[in-house]
């Protein structure tokens, strides 16, 4: 198993232009990043293109990782999500067939969730469960699917500003809960 320290080390070696480290990093992390990207873009071809773009960025930005003070997984996931969300926002018009392919029943713990042991992870999930179901689903939906405020408002059938207020409160409660 590849530990976070191993991943940090691989990123550091990528900064030194070590190609075999890059290949190892790809092997260790690509399935996770592909899951993140595919969930947002919901199109395999586009997600595959994005994977290339994302790993090109990882290779070129590897030298900024150490100074960023991010944990390695967060750093990699952030590059992947930011790329996928930017790409999603550039699509016109916004795809609205999301619900037909992936319903948003994320508030029910899936089997993958039970297998995760990290306490940090359990904390954010537990704190999400403390929110009421609809808000929890909105936060998850936004994070995992890359939904915009506009899309969330349409889906939950509330005015845009209501959704904004709602989600902001949910985020602050989440932060408070996680700081406990």
């Amino acid at each position, binding site marked *: 198993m590849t530990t976070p320290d191993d991943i940090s080390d691989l990123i550091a070696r990528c900064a030194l232009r070590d190609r075999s480290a890059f290949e190892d990093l790809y092997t260790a992390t690509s399935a996770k990043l592909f899951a993140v990207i595919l969930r947002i873009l919901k199109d395999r071809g586009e997600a*595959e293109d994005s994977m*290339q773009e994302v790993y090109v960025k990882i290779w070129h930005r590897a030298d900024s990782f150490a100074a960023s003070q991010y944990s390695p997984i967060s750093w990699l996931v952030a590059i992947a999500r930011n790329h996928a969300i930017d790409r999603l926002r550039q699509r016109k018009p916004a795809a609205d067939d999301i619900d037909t392919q992936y319903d948003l029943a994320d508030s029910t713990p899936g089997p993958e969730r039970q297998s995760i042991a990290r306490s940090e*992870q359990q904390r954010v999930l537990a704190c999400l469960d403390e929110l009421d179901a609809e808000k929890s689903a909105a936060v998850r939906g936004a994070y995992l699917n890359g939904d915009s405020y506009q899309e969330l408002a349409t889906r939950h059938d509330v005015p845009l500003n209501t959704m904004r207020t709602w989600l902001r409160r949910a985020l602050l409660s989440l932060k408070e809960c996680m700081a406990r």
Partner: protein
Amino acid sequence: MTQDEKDEEIGAAEYVLGVLSAEERATFEARLATDPALRAEVRDWTERLTPLAETLPDEPVPPRVYRQLEQRLFPAPTPLLGRLGFWRMVSFGAVAAAAILAVIAFTDPAPTNPAPTLVAQISGEAGVTVAALYDPQEGALRVNRLSGAAADGRALELWLIVGDAPPRSLGLLPTDSQGTLTLTIVALTEGILAISDEPAGGSPTGAPTGQVLAVGALSEV
């Protein structure tokens, strides 16, 4: 926490969550570039929410993705194949090498990588002569010791000097006459290479301690 700080923080949370429109994201990112406190907020929110991404089951990636990625990042070094001839013949001497360099320079196709390939002939009165070729695509320096050797129980250490900076060790020359040194330098574009006589295992101080046996400047092929 002031209202402004709260707004900042919630802006960071919204950005990380990904709910902003393309325009709002661009505006936020422009502020992010110049605001370290905001970057710290973004980092905190990223760390808080990353576990959500980790709940997604792994999705295997088709092998073609890596193949294409590799071609894109590390294009096949075809121009270098032509230089194998250079490598074999350089031992015939500097004059022959110069002639071959001219031929290579003339026949080489346009480089696929903007970073130049560099060569150096490192020599000195002590009789140590080494040809070096820096391949920017591999980030490696191939060395070919043409004459001279380390004294018994001693080692030959290779140094790079760029501008006024102190010499930086590139490692020990291999005991075999030919070898490759992988460099921990992002891009080598210029400099002078030098070889010094050092204790076995290399300079204990990080700077050359023994006699400098050979020197040569890197130049573009």
